[in-house]
């Protein structure tokens, strides 16, 4: 960049454009070395292109586009300049029009902005390519230049405190019913004003502004404010992706029409244009007609980094029903039943049909079509597995408030706080632990040991025609209860068994997701895509697909036979910390450190639901077995329940005092179990929580809920471990609850 600047200056000197050169120099210092250089590189590109001739039109087009974009914010004078003669003349014309320093600054800042986004393109040195890249950026973000120019406006910095306290006074004096809603304004306004002061390098004013008003904000924003307090210089803002996203995305507020009118009138009558500008540019006010909300209702829904969700974000149709199970006859050979009949159909019992499949022949309107997304076909081993599943389901204990599950806790000893991930197979035969020393350890929970397939040399010696060939291929000599898998080069943060128990996935801080074979206990594939720590991964309930989410703020959908992801789910403002498949495998829920939960459609990658309400990063998600509801747990200790179809919060379970790391519904959905860092497992009555839902028109239209304070009624039991945080929960097929955690001695 520096070299480009030097080259441009030399060129100008050569062409005797003294004036332009001086102005460029001045702008370079105005914006800072690095920024100015980047700002000038498109200008330089235009200039260099002019004599070069080939990039001429590109440079001119770029300049005109850039200035056109800036003109939106500034106003017509520059545009007329841009439409004049090519390259050099255009640049020469810009400096005279530089009478308002803002024009150049806006152009410069826009280019800086473009360059910061184009950083990954690395196109700054290529005029042609940059013209294209710059063009793309301009078209995608037409309001970005407006955002930046707003940040560039030098409202009097010393008056910021006056503006803010004036607004504060007004809101506190307003009517009770409006006050709660208007108080939502405080936080986004505070952050944006602070960032504006920092960006324009008024450090001392920013600091005193922060000191004065940060205590007024809601308690659940304290973590954000702490991060904000460390951003005191403009350079600090550049490296922080979350803050950059916060700056550019609009904070959504839901305010009733009456309150909004009140606010608008007040802001427009006083000379509070600064605040009005910020409100217009950085905030998105979703107005609804109806009663203003109470503080309690608002508190339940706010907390995320970008405010609440717009109503239309939750309006898309979601197919939350389950896919139909294929029907087939269950072969009967129950050992406890007396008299195995040779014919295969005992006269005493009727053949059991799959209860799910045969009940309704009609298509469930809420279920996705069978072939909406391609799913792997059922193999024979899968069919056998399903048969086993159904047999176990017949012996399942029906849970309820009178019949609570027994809990079997697996404690990992000597893990020294290194246990970072746990998973249990569906039939509860194996348990895997991912550790901070980058190993993945698989244990067998049943007395049957873990066996791997024999080596190729041994396999050539066995009799391939014998009936028990599947037993013979297993190596008895190396059978053990524990198998350790080495391969990752960083702590393993997520593990997941495949439904057919052939594969194991693990994701780690080294940025890869590894597929391990559970038949040879070796690593098969390393999927590289995230270049940053991957926090969670999960196999689809039908196998073949899996999802992973990581520090790069996206979740990716993979298939085991593609080395690149099939879908990328981008939209979160901060790391994706938790990823789960819906039981019908058509949707993926992701929880993030930006305190929202999003539901994505696998078919086209769209975000179909945004759920806000948590006050901390989300660490656990669980879909109910019928696919209609989602339970989420976060660091704030609350478990929130959501209705997927309507996109509403339907329940809030308070009780845990620390992060909820594990959530699981029982097999028929009657009980929700939650495990937390506060060393307890709590059982909640899910049937009661989901009955009597108010889903009248007003609620669905406005998204406002009235949550009953019934956490105590729903709590069925609290079970404490001595000093073991609960990391994983699993209901066996017969509804026994298994829990896992690592003993920590403090």
């Amino acid at each position, binding site marked *: 960049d*520096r070299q480009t600047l030097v080259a441009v200056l030399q060129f100008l000197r050569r062409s005797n454009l003294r004036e332009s050169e001086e102005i460029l120099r001045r702008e370079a210092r105005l914006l*800072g*070395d*690095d920024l100015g250089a980047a700002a000038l590189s498109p200008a330089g590109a235009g200039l260099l292109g002019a004599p070069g001739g080939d990039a001429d039109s590109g440079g001119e087009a770029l300049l005109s586009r850039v200035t056109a974009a800036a003109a939106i914010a500034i106003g017509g004078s520059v545009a007329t300049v841009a439409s004049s003669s090519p390259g050099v003349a255009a640049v020469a014309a810009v400096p005279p029009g530089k009478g308002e320093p803002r024009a150049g600054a806006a152009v410069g800042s826009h280019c800086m902005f473009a360059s*910061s*986004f184009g950083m*990954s393109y690395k196109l700054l040195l290529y005029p042609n390519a940059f013209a294209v890249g710059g063009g*793309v*950026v301009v078209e*995608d*973000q037409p309001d970005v230049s407006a955002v930046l120019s707003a940040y560039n406006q030098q409202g009097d910095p010393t008056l910021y405190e006056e503006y803010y306290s004036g607004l504060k006074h007004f809101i506190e004096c307003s009517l009770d019913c409006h006050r709660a809603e208007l108080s939502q304004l405080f936080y986004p306004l505070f952050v944006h004003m602070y960032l504006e002061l920092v960006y324009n390098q008024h450090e001392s004013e920013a600091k005193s502004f922060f000191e004065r008003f940060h205590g007024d904000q809601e308690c659940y924003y304290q973590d954000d404010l*702490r991060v904000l*307090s460390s951003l005191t210089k403009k*350079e600090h803002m550049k*490296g922080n*992706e979350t803050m*950059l*996203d916060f700056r*550019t995305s609009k904070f959504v507020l839901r305010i009733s029409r009456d309150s909004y009118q009140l606010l608008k009138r007040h802001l427009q009558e006083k000379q509070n244009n600064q605040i009005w500008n910020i409100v217009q540019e950085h905030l998105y006010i979703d107005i609804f007609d109806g009663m203003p909300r109470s503080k309690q209702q608002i508190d339940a829904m706010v907390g995320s980094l970008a405010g609440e969700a717009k109503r239309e974000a939750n309006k898309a149709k979601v197919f939350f029903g389950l896919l139909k199970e294929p029907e087939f006859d269950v072969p009967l050979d129950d050992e406890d039943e007396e008299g195995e009949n040779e014919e295969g159909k005992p006269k005493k019992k009727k053949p059991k049909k799959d209860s799910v499949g045969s009940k309704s022949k009609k298509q469930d309107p809420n279920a996705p079509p069978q072939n909406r997304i*391609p*799913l*792997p*076909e059922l193999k024979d081993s899968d069919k056998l597995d399903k048969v086993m599943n159904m047999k176990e389901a017949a012996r399942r204990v029906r849970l309820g408030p009178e019949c609570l599950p027994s809990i079997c806790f697996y404690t990992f000893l000597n893990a020294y*706080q290194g246990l970072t991930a746990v998973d249990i197979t569906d039939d509860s035969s194996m348990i895997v632990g991912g550790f901070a020393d980058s190993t993945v350890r698989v244990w067998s929970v049943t007395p049957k040991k873990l066996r791997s397939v024999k080596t190729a*040399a*041994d396999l050539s010696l066995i009799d391939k025609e014998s009936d028990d060939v599947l037993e013979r291929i297993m190596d008895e000599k190396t059978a053990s209860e524990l198998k350790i898998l080495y*391969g990752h080069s960083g702590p393993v943060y997520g593990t997941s068994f495949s439904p057919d128990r052939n594969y194991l996935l693990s994701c780690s801080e080294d940025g890869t997701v590894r597929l391990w*074979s559970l038949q040879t206990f*070796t*690593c*098969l*594939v*390393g999927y590289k895509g995230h*270049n*940053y720590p991957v926090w969670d991964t999960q196999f689809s309930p039908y196998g*073949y697909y899996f999802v992973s989410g990581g*520090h*790069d*703020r*996206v979740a990716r959908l993979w*298939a*085991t*036979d*593609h*080395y690149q992801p*099939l*879908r*990328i*789910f*981008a*939209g979160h*403002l901060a790391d994706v910390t938790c990823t789960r498949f819906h039981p019908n495998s058509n949707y993926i829920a992701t929880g993030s450190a930006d305190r929202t939960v999003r539901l994505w459609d*696998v*078919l*086209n*990658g*769209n975000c179909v639901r945004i759920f806000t309400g948590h006050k901390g990063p989300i660490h656990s998600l669980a879909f109910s077995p019928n696919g209609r509801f989602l339970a989420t747990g976060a660091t704030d200790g609350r478990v929130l329940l959501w209705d997927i179809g309507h996109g509403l919060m339907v329940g809030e379970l308070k009780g845990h005092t620390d992060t909820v790391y594990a959530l699981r519904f029982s097999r028929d959905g009657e009980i929700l179990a939650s495990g937390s860092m506060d060393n307890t497992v709590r059982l909640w009555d899910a049937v009661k929580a989901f009955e009597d839902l108010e889903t009248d028109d007003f609620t669905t239209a406005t998204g406002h809920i009235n949550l009953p304070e019934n956490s105590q009624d729903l709590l069925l039991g609290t079970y404490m471990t001595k000093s073991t945080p609960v990391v994983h929960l699993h209901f066996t097929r017969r509804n026994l609850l298994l829990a896992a955690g690592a003993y*920590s*001695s*403090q």
Partner: protein
Amino acid sequence: MEPAKMASPKSAPKDAQVMAQILKDMGITEYEPRVINQMLEFAYRYVTTILEDAKIYSSHAKKSSVDADDVRLAIQCRTDQSFTSPPPRDFLLDIARQKNQTPLPLIKPYSGPRLPPDRYCLTAPNYRLKSLQKKVASSAGRITVPRLSVGAVSSRPSTPTLGTPSAQTVSVSAKVGTPVSLTGQRFTVQIPSSQAAVKSATPTTPTVQNVLINPSLIGPKNILITTNVVSSQNTSNESNPLKRKHEDDDDYDNL
């Protein structure tokens, strides 16, 4: 682990106190005591790197002293190198849009384990055997390269071959001063012949005649001793495959 014990104010150096204060300001209340050391190390290393770079830049610009611009440039250059941050949001949205436009690929039925093409898997062998050097099969009377090879049981798939050599009488000549190299689990003692071995010849010293394989040797040390006869062309037909096997192993050992 014990909860963090702060060093008492008067004994901790000033830098450590500052670092502890920074951690407190950022809201971190529980940390192991060594964290302060690590943070101080990082801070020291980072600052010295930046300042050294800044000195280089300022001397390049022929300035008399380092000023803020040099430091700023040094920081900027180092940031791109050492601290990468995830891609910006609009870039992610862009590539997501591109990726999500392609429909989901259909799944081929009955295709065995569904894995990516082999070059993207980790299933290839990560070793390669060194190619054979064909030993010239010389005429009779000169062949004998009898060897005594010792190996652990588990690595020897040729366990069943124990039976055959023991039936034969072998003649083994020991080489004086052979370095026995223990590589991994097995080691080979190379015993070049000094003379032709015949079935019932009376060899000169130092040779051992008629060594019978004693199966009891296997038990205690878990070391299997197999002796393969590579002798005259009388037995060459049946022992040639054995010979080749040990040639391989021998070369492999020498790598």
